C-alpha cells in the first residue's frame, strides 16, 4: 500500500495556502497531520493531483479563549487540546471525549480540523462539536464563512467544504457553570472508531429541573444526530431514573445506523439508548454537584 503520485505543496502562511487552493482546489487535498488522508492515499481511495500541506501554517495553530467559546485553530493537534488546561477548565467535554480519538501515536499528529473535515460519522470530534452546538469557520481566498455542524456535515465523509475552502478554526462553546456534561462510547477496542458514541450537556435550574439539554449521537446515522424531541422532552422536568430512561429511548426509531460485521443495525440502535441513558445520568450528577455545591 503506497500513495499514488502527487505534487506536494507546503505553504508558509495562510494567504499562500488559500492562493494554492484557489489555483488547484478541484484537484487538491488539504493535509496537515494526515492521519485520515494518508490511509486513504495508501489504499488509493483518494488520488489527488496536489497535496497542500498546511502543517506549518502557524496562523492555523493554537487554542484561544473568547467570551462564549474556546476557539481552536484548524491544525491544532489532538494532543495539544487533550493537554490544554484552558480546555479542561472551560470545555471539559472536549477533554473527556478527545482521549477516545485513536491512540497517543495518532493524537500526536492528528488535528482538530482534520477530524472535522474528514467527517467520519463514528469520529468523536464531530459528535462533540454537534452536542456543544459549536461552529466551523471556513475560509477561502474570497471570504470567511461560519457554519453550524448541521450545515457542515452532509453525509458519510461528505461536508459542505468547497474545494477552495479550508477550515480556519472551530468554535467550541464553553460549558456554563451549573451545567454537567458526559461523553460515552463503545468501541470494539480502545482507540477504534466508535460503534456508537454520545455527548451530552445538561443545564439545571436552581430547583433541580432541567433548564437545557444538548445531545448528539455519533455512529448512529450518516451524520451526528441531534435527538430534538428527547431534548425538548427533558426541558422543564425534574430528572429521575424513569424520565431519563424514557428520554434515552424516545427517538431510537429515528436512528439509522449502518450494520456490519462488528455490530448489527439493531445492536447499535439498542446501544444508543444505553449510552444515552448513561451519559444523561453522569451529566446530571455533574450538574447537581455544580448547582448545589
Amino acid at each position, binding site marked *: 500500500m*503506497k500513495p499514488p503520485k502527487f505534487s*506536494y505543496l507546503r505553504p508558509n502562511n495562510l494567504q499562500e495556502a488559500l492562493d494554492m487552493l484557489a489555483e488547484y482546489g478541484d484537484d487538491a487535498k488539504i493535509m496537515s497531520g494526515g492521519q485520515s488522508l*494518508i490511509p486513504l*492515499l*495508501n489504499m488509493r481511495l483518494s488520488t489527488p493531483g496536489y497535496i497542500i500541506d498546511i502543517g506549518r501554517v502557524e496562523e492555523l495553530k493554537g487554542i484561544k479563549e473568547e467570551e462564549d467559546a474556546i476557539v481552536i485553530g484548524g491544525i491544532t493537534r489532538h*494532543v495539544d487540546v487533550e493537554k490544554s488546561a484552558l480546555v479542561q477548565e472551560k470545555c471539559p467535554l472536549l477533554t473527556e471525549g478527545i482521549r477516545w480519538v485513536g*491512540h*497517543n501515536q495518532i493524537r500526536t*499528529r492528528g488535528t482538530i480540523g482534520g477530524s472535522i473535515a474528514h467527517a467520519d460519522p463514528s469520529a468523536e470530534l464531530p459528535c462533540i462539536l454537534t452536542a456543544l452546538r459549536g461552529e466551523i469557520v471556513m475560509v477561502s481566498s474570497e471570504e470567511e464563512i461560519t457554519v453550524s455542524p448541521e450545515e457542515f456535515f452532509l453525509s458519510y465523509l461528505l461536508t459542505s467544504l468547497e474545494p477552495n475552502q479550508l477550515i480556519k478554526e472551530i468554535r467550541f462553546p464553553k460549558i456554563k457553570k451549573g451545567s454537567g456534561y458526559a461523553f460515552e462510547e463503545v468501541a470494539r477496542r480502545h*482507540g477504534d472508531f466508535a460503534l456508537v458514541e454520545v455527548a451530552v450537556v445538561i443545564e439545571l435550574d436552581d430547583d433541580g429541573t432541567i433548564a437545557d439539554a444538548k445531545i448528539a449521537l455519533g455512529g448512529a446515522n450518516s451524520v451526528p444526530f441531534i435527538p430534538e424531541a428527547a431534548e425538548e422532552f427533558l426541558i422543564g422536568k425534574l430528572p429521575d431514573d424513569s424520565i431519563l430512561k424514557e428520554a434515552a429511548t424516545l427517538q431510537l426509531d429515528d436512528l439509522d445506523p449502518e450494520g456490519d460485521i462488528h455490530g448489527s443495525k439493531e445492536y447499535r440502535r439498542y446501544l444508543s439508548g444505553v449510552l444515552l441513558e448513561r451519559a444523561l445520568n453522569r451529566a446530571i450528577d455533574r450538574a447537581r454537584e455544580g448547582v448545589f455545591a
Partner: protein
Amino acid sequence: MSNCNVKIKINGEVIEKEIESRWLLSDFLRDKLGLTGTHVGCEHGVCGACTILLNGEPVRSCLMLAVQADGLEVETVESLAEEDGTFHPIQQAFANNHALQCGFCTPGFLMSVKNFMETHPELPTDDEIREAISGNLCRCTGYSNIIKAVKDAYVLKC
C-alpha cells in the same frame, strides 16, 4: 513538484536527500536508508509496528510522508542500543522478561515506551502502562510480559 529536497536529522545524523514526495516515512527509513528496524505491519495506522519518535513524540511512520519530516528530528529503534551493542534499559528489560516472541512488533513498542518513560518519570500503574501501549498490537505475548518489562525498565534505568 513530485520530488522534494529534505533535510532530516535521523538518529543524530543529518540526512539531506532528494526524495519523491509520495514516499512514506516508513519506506524512506527502510528502503532508502536501510534502517529496517522500523517494521511495517498494516500500513494504515492500526498496528503500531512502525512507531518512531518525531521530535521526541511517538508517531506512526506509515501515516506520515517523509517530506513532512523535513527540518525535524527522527529517532528509530536503531538509536536505542549503544555502539558496542549494549542494550538500552528498555531493550534489556524486554529481553529479561520475555516480552517478545517473534519480535515483529517490538521496535514499535520500544519507541512508544521510550516516550512514555520520558513523559512519566514516576513508576506507573499497570493501567497506565496498558493505556500507553494500547496503540501497539502484539500477537504473541498476550501483553502481560510487556507490562512486566516496562515496570522492570523503570528499575533498570535507575
